[in-house]
């Protein structure tokens, strides 16, 4: 950072930060993009503060959704209504929004969370959605159907069942259709996981021309990879562990260290790296705060005898096997 001679141009830094922020909202945002963003953010504190400043304002503008008209062009309506009337209307809508959160309409809407983010959404039909870290979810409600597209990340759904309007979660070529239920869907780069805690869902795929469906009851957990669908039965408490993120926790049970590290890395900018392949296969158990990477590293050292190398500047904690 050229701290002593020349100030960084706020305008040029903001331009780049805004560009990242805009691109981040698109469905094509990849892990590589995230890495590039993280690296830009760590280059200078000026980058970080400019990004945080723009992001917080941009996120606040989400509240404008209460102005969303039932149909037609939002922009033209905004311009037609005199400002005072708009304010009164908005105040009323804000009150309504306080209880029902979001009005129903036939337009789509995007919900996002960043790294380590967590958001609860109450939809107009009483359906609740909880977004886990780094998630992009698109809502499209019409009179005939309720379609949620999970572009990235993970979400928990408590669906208000409606025979006339099926609730469908789309993930790539797959779809999960609610049959009166609570379930979660997680999208990783190479796989899709669906767990059902109550009721039943139908997991469908459009991969082949005729399509195929499988029913998943409560307690079932499906792992979908490119090659196949594997269905497990999980005890309620084990399935609950998969949802510990709702309380900000991570639960491991004989989990390989590499896998546990990958879980932490979903939530934190500070990354856990398993430097030594011998350490990767060691298994660990316990309940941890998602954000407490250091606590986890300390426990791993105490239980497994791994060595910790801490690089605070790069926000990397590296673990390697003991002697």
């Amino acid at each position, binding site marked *: 950072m050229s701290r002593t001679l020349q*100030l*960084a*141009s*706020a*305008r040029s830094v*903001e*331009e780049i930060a*805004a*560009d990242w*922020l*805009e691109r981040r909202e*698109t*469905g094509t945002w990849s892990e590589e993009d995230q890495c590039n963003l993280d690296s830009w953010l760590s280059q*200078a*504190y*000026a980058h*970080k*503060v*400019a990004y*945080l*400043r*723009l992001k*917080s*304002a*941009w996120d*606040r*503008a*989400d*509240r*404008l*959704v209460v*102005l*969303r008209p039932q149909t037609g062009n*939002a*922009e033209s309506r*905004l311009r037609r209504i005199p*400002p005072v009337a*708009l*304010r009164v209307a*908005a*105040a009323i809508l*804000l009150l309504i929004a306080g209880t029902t959160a979001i009005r129903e309409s036939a*337009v*789509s*809407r995007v919900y996002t969370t960043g790294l380590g983010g*967590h958001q*609860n959404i*109450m939809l107009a039909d009483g359906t609740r959605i*909880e977004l886990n870290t780094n998630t992009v979810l*698109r*809502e499209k409600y019409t009179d005939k159907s309720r379609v949620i597209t999970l572009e990235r990340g993970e979400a928990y759904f408590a669906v208000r069942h409606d025979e006339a309007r099926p609730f469908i979660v789309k993930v790539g070529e797959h779809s999960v259709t609610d049959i009166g239920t609570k379930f979660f869907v997680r999208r990783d780069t190479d796989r899709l996981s669906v767990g059902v*805690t109550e009721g039943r869902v139908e997991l469908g795929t459009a991969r082949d021309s005729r399509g195929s469906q499988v029913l998943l009851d409560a307690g079932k957990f499906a792992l979908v990879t490119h090659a196949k669908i594997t269905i497990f039965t999980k005890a309620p408490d084990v399935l*609950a562990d998969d*949802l510990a993120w*709702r309380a900000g926790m991570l639960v491991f049970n004989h989990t390989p260290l590499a896998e546990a590290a990958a879980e932490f890395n979903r939530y*934190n*900018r500070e990354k856990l790296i398993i430097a030594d392949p011998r350490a990767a296969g060691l298994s660990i158990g316990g309940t941890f705060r998602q*954000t407490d990477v*250091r606590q986890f590293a300390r426990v791993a050292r105490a239980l497994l005898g791994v060595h910790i190398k801490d690089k605070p500047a790069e*926000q990397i904690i590296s673990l390697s096997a003991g002697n």
Partner: protein
Amino acid sequence: MVEPLDPSREHTPQRLRGAAVSVRDVEEWFVREVLPLETTLTHFLRRNWRKKNEIPDLRQEVYARVYEAALTEIPGNIKPFVLATARNLLINQMRRDRVVSIEAVADLEKVDVSAPEVPQDRALIAREELRRLQDALTKLPRRCRQAVTLRKLEGLSRREIAVRMGVSDNTVRRHLIDGMRILAEKLHGDEAKPERAQ
């Protein structure tokens, strides 16, 4: 299972003080406590710095320094800390600038930055928020406002907005970026008007 939705889990100020500060704590603190002081900070800079075109750069530098300091320890009394950081930055900049007289530096050193922050009425802020957002929205250039509205109210992608507005993807990108910058300026900077009296 954690069935009830608990929005209060976001508020954990007590955890902030103390030795180990996580990056995420600092980020949240910065957004929650420092950014709302933007009007005060900008006014301080304007009052004490003649070259108005440099104000945004100076403000960004103050933010960067405050953020960096908080990584070690989150300061207790935030407003005096932010203003002291600003003052020190201005003094350093002035000393570098040979034409500025020693008197100007001395004046700046006398500036009182110790006034504690006024506790904000969060309920009032919540009520004001939508009005402020709408005001900010009306300040955007027409095409820019249209793009922001389509993104925020209808959740359209860049491509969809481009089709709707009959312009290129890149033009939409430009509008959204401009929209973000203007909204940030209006939302962080133009609020808390009573602060201006100081």
